[in-house]
């Protein structure tokens, strides 16, 4: 399973980004994961725990927002949300290969906790 490589790359990116906020503690990492991204949520949560253990990210919560598949239908000129078993417009039933959402695999944001002094300095 590749969730371990995914978790490792999240750790790397978050660590890099958090370095801009000295003294801050990352408390939450929010992801957008498409239904077609081939990532198993439970497995990613498990790998996140393993990958952050003993690092400054230990204890940070991983919040995964699943993005359903959305296709565009040329006939209806409309987007619709579908499952992953059949790529058909949910309005008219026509097959469509025009994918508009569902392949995401991204870090949306992180929530950090900063000591008061840090924020007064920057203010």
């Amino acid at each position: 399973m590749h969730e371990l490589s995914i978790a490792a790359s999240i750790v790397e990116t978050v660590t890099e980004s958090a370095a801009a906020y000295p003294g801050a503690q990352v408390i939450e990492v929010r992801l957008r994961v498409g239904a077609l991204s081939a990532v198993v949520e439970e497995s990613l949560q498990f790998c996140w725990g393993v990958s952050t253990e003993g690092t400054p990210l230990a204890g940070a919560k991983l919040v995964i927002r699943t993005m359903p598949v959305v296709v565009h239908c040329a006939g209806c000129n409309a987007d619709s949300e579908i499952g992953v078993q059949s790529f058909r417009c949910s309005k008219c039933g026509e097959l469509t290969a025009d994918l508009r959402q569902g392949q995401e695999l991204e870090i949306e944001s992180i929530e950090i906790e900063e000591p008061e002094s840090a924020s007064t300095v920057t203010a």
Partner: protein
Amino acid sequence: MTTRIVELRRGILKKNDELAAVLRQRFEAAGVLVLNLVSSPGTGKTAFLERTLRELRGRGARVAALVGDLETDNDARRLAASGAPVQQINTHGICHLDAEMIAKALADGGPFDVSGLDYLFIENVGNLVCPSSYDLGERIRVALLSVTEGEDKPLKYPTLFNSADAAVITKMDLAAACEFDRALALKNINEIRPGIRVFETSAKTGAGMAEWLEYLGEARRKQG
């Protein structure tokens, strides 16, 4: 203590995607058509590829292959029997190839120079899930499915089939013995990837190879 939210909006596989984009540019500049073959272990990637390499070489094309394998070099040796240069990428247990492994294998001093090639085939590690997330810089991703695996494979692994540019059904010589439901398999592939080209082949008898080679030739000419 104060908390704040920092927007990142960063692709988790951004590094891989960026490196794949560099590879893709390099392949296009070199005029080599690159294909990434993905399927379960045992589907027949190596057999299909060996036959493809042989037949392309027979027509005078310059071909080479990279093959990802968890631990052994068996597939590389089988492919090399076609006479084409073959480079093995041992992933040491990692379940997929990534762009960095391809870049390393093709670094200067490697077994072949991509600018001297017409076609480069990459046999991915046998796995129906993980390879679909990793762009290798290929132009065409080929998902393979054998008649012995069950017609519902595309429905069980939609990501792999949805991200493919072409599909190949292998071991067609065994279709009758396996009571393979051809119409159902084609319907399932088309439900997941509407309009995809599907080739029905046998590496043993050579069935379907002519059509496949014609498709390769066309894709190669389009590349210019």
